[in-house]
């Protein structure tokens, strides 16, 4: 019994010591923050909530890149320096897991200097996390969560720069039926909220337009074998295969369709709009595939070309991934709001509750030119940017579709 008791005592001691260290350190940093001199700029932090070690890591890393680029540009900006603020980012790895995501959200709101969050990727993470941010008046701008219910919970701090499925899906359907002349479609999704929503909306509008949906199937977002599905598609001979999902699996589906001799092109949403898609599917298989994405093509907007140049300078050798540009815009939305509040209330007040509430109001009133087009929000916090561009793979790269 003595050994057991000794272990109990040791455990209690260890945990208590840990708690003391944590509390001690925490209060130390708190006091450290308040006596910042007049010459020192106020640090304003922006959280990046994305899957970085598990889940859709490639997309999460892209989000991190986009937001970091926006922040490093802002810190170079003379206007920001004049206001006396410096931006910092904090990357919170949510692993695409709702439980971890809410812990990350709590970590973000524990940091009094953190005023806004660029994230999260998965709707299943964004929705519960948004409630945590709301309680601490931290603004959240998601670059990628498309589940409609995210912005319909009556939370005033929740925004997104990506379009919801009910905009992009029907637009894709209209393009497919009216512009491209496809009369029949086989619709597949990847069982994620994004893919399912997009595919459902596409199928609905495609049928309404007068097209024939010859099949509706679900697959998994980690699946790599689609051969059975491909055989089924081949036997039904649709004019187009619509895939609601991300480029990883979408590319594999496209490759397997092409290997099996299916000539119908694959079509999808902005989840496919990634240079990796073509690399993974192979030039031959990807050629002629379609996808829709929000906003005008990057090259056609002055901001877009700048972004591309800055991105290539900052991350040599990296290709712009599906959500990099959205994340860049989302971070800039927060940065612009902080700048406005810093100008109105003074830099010191940005990280107070008053400042955070003002930032939410400033984000709601956003009206800026972003990489993906004009960024502004409606009453729910959804983007008003309803411009959808149709892209096709031409000579091994996504290019805007011209009739």
């Amino acid at each position, binding site marked *: 019994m003595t050994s057991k008791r000794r272990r109990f005592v040791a455990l209690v001691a260890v945990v208590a010591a840990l708690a003391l260290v944590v509390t001690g350190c*925490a209060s130390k*940093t708190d006091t450290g923050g308040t006596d910042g001199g007049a010459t020192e700029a106020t640090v304003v932090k922006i959280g990046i909530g994305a899957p970085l070690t598990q889940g859709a890591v490639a997309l999460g890393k892209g989000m991190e890149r986009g937001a970091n680029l926006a922040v490093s540009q802002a810190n170079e900006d003379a206007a920001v320096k004049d206001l006396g603020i410096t931006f910092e980012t904090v990357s*919170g790895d949510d692993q695409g897991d*709702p439980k971890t995501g*809410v812990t990350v959200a709590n*970590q973000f709101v524990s940091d009094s200097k953190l005023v806004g969050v660029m994230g999260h990727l998965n709707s299943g993470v964004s929705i519960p996390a948004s409630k945590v941010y709301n309680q*601490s008046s931290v603004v959240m701008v998601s670059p990628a969560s498309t589940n409609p*219910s995210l912005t*319909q919970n009556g939370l005033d701090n929740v925004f997104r720069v990506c379009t919801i499925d009910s905009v992009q899906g029907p637009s894709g359907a209209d393009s497919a039926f009216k512009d491209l002349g496809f009369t029949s479609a086989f619709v597949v999704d990847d069982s994620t909220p994004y893919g399912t929503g997009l595919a459902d909306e596409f199928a609905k509008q495609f049928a309404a337009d007068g097209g024939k949906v010859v099949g509706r199937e679900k697959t998994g977002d980690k699946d790599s074998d689609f051969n059975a599905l491909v055989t089924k598609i081949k036997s039904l001979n649709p004019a187009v295969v619509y895939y609601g999902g991300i480029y990883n699996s979408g590319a594999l589906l496209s490759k397997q369709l092409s290997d099996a001799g299916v000539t119908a092109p694959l079509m999808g949403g902005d989840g496919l709009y990634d240079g990796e898609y073509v690399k993974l599917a192979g030039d031959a298989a990807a050629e002629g595939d379609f996808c829709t994405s929000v906003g005008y093509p990057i090259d056609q907007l002055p901001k877009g070309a700048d972004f591309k140049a800055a991105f290539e300078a900052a991350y040599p050798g990296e290709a712009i991934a599906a959500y990099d540009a959205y994340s860049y815009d989302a971070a800039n939305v927060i940065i612009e709001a902080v700048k406005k509040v810093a100008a109105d209330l003074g830099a010191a007040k940005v990280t107070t509750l008053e400042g955070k509430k003002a930032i939410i109001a400033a984000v709601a009133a956003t009206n800026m030119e972003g990489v993906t087009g004009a960024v502004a929000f409606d009453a729910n916090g959804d983007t008003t940017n309803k411009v959808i561009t149709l892209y096709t793979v031409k000579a091994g790269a996504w290019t805007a579709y011209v009739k």
Partner: protein
Amino acid sequence: MGGSKMDIRTKVSSRKATTKQKIIYALIAVFIVLVPVIFQGIGQLFLVRIMGVVGLYVMLALGLNIVVGFAGLLDLGYIAFYAMGAYVGVIVGDVMLKTFGASFGPWVYFASLPIAALAAAATGIALGTPVLRLRGDYLAIVTLGFGEIVRILITNDVFGLTNGPAGLPRSGQSIPEPFGLLWLREHAVFSIGDNFNFQFSNNLYWYFIAVLLCLLTIFVVRRLDDSRLGRSWTAMREDEVAAASVGINITTAKLWAFSLGAVWGGVAGLTFANFQQFVSPESFTFMESVFVVCIVVLGGMGSIPGAIIGAIAIQGIPELIRGLAQSGILPLDPGQASLVSNYRYLVFGLVMVIMMAVRPQGIWPSARRAMELHPDDEKIQNEESQSLWEAEHKTDTADHDL
């Protein structure tokens, strides 16, 4: 080891606490209540959150402990019960809200808790019945498959109940706040000095609920361990054939293990759904089941303090490290902080391997188990892996014709 075998009974039954133990328990109780209050007060909300999540996993681990630790049945699909509890609870809660009106809101969680528990128990029996004859590792894979089936059915919006990948509650609906949370948030507010501003929070509420449920679980699990049923589990775990021959009904004992284990999974699931205020299929992956098994084994099978330490080690520490590294509490620059965050799972995997090499019986093994079974005794181990069915059908056990 041999000498101490004699006092198994005295040790197990002498549970009257000595004065010293009473002091220790009192200290732990103070610690459990005060520490999160302090964290909340100094604004480190994520530490409270992590403690809440650890509480949920303690509950899960204690539940799985009944199945794995007591009854010796390896279950790799335990998260299915967690999912059942969460979904059934939320769906039933929604029905209650519609039937009794919005004023019933505060009671929805408490009213749907027993239903979620029952639903999980029923699922446990439904799973347990067909797989009764299976031996350890076959059972493991069947439970794994069962867990995946449940997750896929939820993802495919089975019967239109689960809203598929989009999760519950549906757009525009919400899980009502439980009794007392609103009042506490408004009234339990105080400050000490400039840096200590306490306000009661969602995290604290669910942390305390989790602690209360854990205490209830510990109470029940300890009673079970000492009960006739608990002893028949032990007997069954050590030797199914011998247990059956002394009149233990193996079928009943196994089904009780499955259903009682499932109950705590279900309770934890509904609590999780309320803690999150949202539930979606992403939370119920196979890796979650694996993590709960890891908690039980790493902590020490059949051991209650083991389950607690295991939950802290597996669910708490990786999150804690990330949180501490990134919130500026540890003196790290952002580059180092993200390095720590990115490498934590790599190190975590390595630590699991090293832990098992150093202490294969777990961090805090159950005293009774450690005495009953000498880990080096291979013969006992082999017999442990033999099921009644096998023994009935074969004379030799370890026959694998390669």
